[in-house]
């Protein structure tokens, strides 16, 4: 198929008219997806359904990382009776999206190998499906045993269930069952008409990515409402996003050290993370940056004192993190636990459509800051870090390198920021959204690609709101990483990805 049957949209630009989006017959839709995904530079950002006036509409967004564009196209079904040919058979990266559609609307995808519930959403199609009856994969054998972990885990973390099938100490298969964190966020984002409420919801999608998700939301609202923000504000948002990245990466390094009983690394990194999040609090009064990002403006414009303090903290942290990272990634006893453990190959990562850090550690260049630049990254190119080995070591080292890169970015941004006019508007809450539009906003949070998308109706109300956290793609990477590993290496593999439960469950 050579014909382009889709509309193109640039990230963070004008939304497109609903009627401009081609509605394809399913077989054409199928071919269009296949045609696009043949190119490695393309990956699926989101594919979701919504029910309006008795019709099921399905929208698919496929991002072209080489040309900074997103292809948008759709198909419609009159009901959920028609059995659709599963794309997952050929393109594994669509597995989670087809599962979600099946769970929400009861649509059957013929040939999908794994048509299981994603999150047991409150509005799921089949309410007789309950979370206690998840259909786990089993293997009949007298040699094998199963290990169930969760939903409540040993540590102070979010809930989710992991079911291992083991041969002795070796993991043959891991199935990850989520849904325990489902709070109905997408529905609330539509129901709550108040724009401040939507901001608060966005920053609570995943508290460890408050800045990332609120930025994706604000950017979406700004594009749908036609609000332009100053370059100064764009710079400040990028600084905030990089601070969030640094804080989490250092915190995760602490956790990795904790898992291999390297106490020096753990305590030093914990203390360094504290410095960064306290600097965020100095700026906006919240250690996680809640309240910092708002549509149209900011309640906490950066000032010289705060900027200087951020630079001071970063310089100090960078030096100390260098010292300790040098130890962490050279001690033989640690390397033995990191290297060649929890490996994901480039081929696997590509096939499951991994995004963000998880993709970059397998040699895939996939960084929205580079491929679909947003905010001030459009004027300030970012040096993308990629590694090749796809193991726990790579995911640790990736964090290390990204911390240094982010420190450099913040330094550069503050330099430019100082030359700008410091005027920043206050947030805009009484916006009016354009009618009958589809807006798409994607950003690179510390985990990877976050997508917020909304469809407006004839009155400019939000008719549908879709949130996609990078964890949606990447949980499968964890399941693949632990295959043929010792089960005792599961915690460190899990930590090395640090995926979001609430970001998946919404």
């Amino acid at each position, binding site marked *: 198929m050579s014909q382009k049957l889709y509309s193109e949209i640039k990230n963070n630009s004008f939304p497109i008219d609903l009627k401009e989006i081609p509605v394809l017959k399913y077989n054409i839709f199928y071919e269009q997806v296949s045609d696009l995904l043949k190119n490695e530079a393309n990956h699926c950002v989101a594919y979701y359904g919504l029910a309006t006036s008795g019709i099921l509409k399905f929208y698919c967004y496929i991002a072209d990382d080489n040309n900074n564009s997103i292809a948008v196209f759709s198909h419609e079904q009159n009901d959920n009776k028609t059995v659709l040919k599963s794309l997952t058979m050929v393109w594994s990266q669509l597995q989670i999206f087809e599962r979600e559609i099946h769970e929400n609307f009861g649509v059957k995808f013929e040939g999908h190998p794994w048509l299981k519930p994603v999150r047991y959403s409150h509005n799921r199609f089949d309410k007789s499906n309950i979370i206690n009856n998840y259909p786990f994969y089993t293997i009949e054998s007298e040699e094998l045993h199963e290990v169930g972990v969760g939903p409540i885990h040993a540590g102070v973390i979010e809930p989710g269930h992991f079911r291992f099938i083991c041969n002795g100490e070796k993991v043959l298969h891991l199935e990850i069952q989520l849904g*325990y964190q489902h709070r109905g966020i997408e529905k609330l984002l539509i129901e709550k008409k108040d724009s401040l409420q939507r901001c608060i919801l966005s920053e609570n999608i995943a508290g460890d990515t408050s800045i990332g998700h609120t930025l994706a939301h604000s950017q979406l609202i700004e594009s749908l409402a036609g609000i332009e923000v100053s370059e100064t504000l764009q710079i400040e948002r990028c600084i905030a996003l990089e601070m969030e990245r640094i804080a989490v990466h250092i915190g995760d390094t602490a956790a990795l050290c904790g898992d291999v009983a390297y106490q020096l690394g753990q305590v030093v990194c914990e203390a360094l993370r504290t410095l960064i999040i306290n600097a965020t609090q100095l700026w906006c009064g919240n250690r996680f940056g*809640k309240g910092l990002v708002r549509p149209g403006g900011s309640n906490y414009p950066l000032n010289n004192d705060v900027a200087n303090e951020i630079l001071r903290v970063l310089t100090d942290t960078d030096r*100390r993190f260098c010292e300790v990272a040098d130890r962490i990634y050279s001690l033989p006893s640690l390397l033995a636990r990191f290297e060649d453990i929890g490996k994901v190959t480039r081929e696997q990562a590509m096939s499951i459509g991994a995004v963000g850090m998880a993709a970059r550690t397998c040699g895939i260049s996939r960084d929205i800051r580079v491929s679909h630049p947003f905010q001030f990254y459009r004027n300030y190119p970012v040096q993308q870090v990629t590694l090749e080995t796809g193991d726990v070591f790579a995911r640790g080292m990736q964090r290390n390198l990204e911390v240094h890169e982010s420190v450099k970015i913040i330094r550069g941004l503050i330099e430019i920021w100082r030359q700008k006019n410091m005027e920043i508007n206050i947030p805009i809450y009484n916006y009016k959204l354009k009618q009958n539009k589809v807006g798409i906003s994607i950003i690179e949070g510390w985990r990877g690609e976050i997508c917020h998308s909304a469809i407006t109706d004839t009155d400019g109300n939000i008719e549908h709101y879709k949130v996609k956290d990078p964890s949606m793609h990447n949980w499968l990477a964890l399941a693949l990483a632990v295959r043929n590993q010792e089960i005792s290496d599961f915690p460190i593999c899990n930590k090395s990805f640090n995926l979001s439960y609430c970001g998946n469950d919404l």
Partner: protein
Amino acid sequence: MLKEIKVLKSHGRQYIKDLRKQPVPGLFRGRPVISGDITADEIKSVSSLCPVMAIDNKSGSIDLGKCVFCKECSFLLPAKIRFTNDYRIASNVRETLIIQPDSENPVRLEAEIVRKEIRKLFKNALKLRQVSAGGDNSCELELNATGNVNFDFGRYGIEFVASPRHADGIVITGPISENMSEPLQICYDAIPDPKIIILAGTDAISGGIFEGSPAINRHFIDENHIDLYVPGNPIHPLTFINGVMDLLGIR
């Protein structure tokens, strides 16, 4: 070895000496103070602005059990409402979390109604099981932080344990998702008596921004006695630490 010593030297001493008096840096959004001369019209405007209906539209009081600390009311009326950096806002009485206008009084725990066995049994060691029930991972991270090198709550024998069988109480975060309500109950039932319940964060105390969502189920909260409410979005580690110390009667 020399390199490790260098790391330690840079690390220096990080622990907070006095967890009771440690100041928090910057613009921390803690206990609000509402001016006594706030007018009825002003109350109406901030009350309708509040995203979680934490401000009473008659009295103008702010309920910290509902407040998400977005500070928008203060941006609207900076002369009438301000958020202080007082992080000691935990209490065992739900009503105490409601801050009335014209009051500079700190939020305090009512020691006389704390069950006697709590202080008797747990004052020297309290082991807690944490359950995240729809928590967004920010309160969870802050609870983890209470045990880190900075806050070191373990110095009082207070820490988080893996098994409910080893625990003296439960710390709940999140608005309690429908899908977590049963695991939460099972976990609570597995903790031996006597046991305490602590709600950490606005979401846990009232449901926060998720209040009214059909995907949450708050029966557990309605049916059980809550020993400590720790407000925050997320809670600050020092809010939790001071709240628990007050509950146990640690000076």
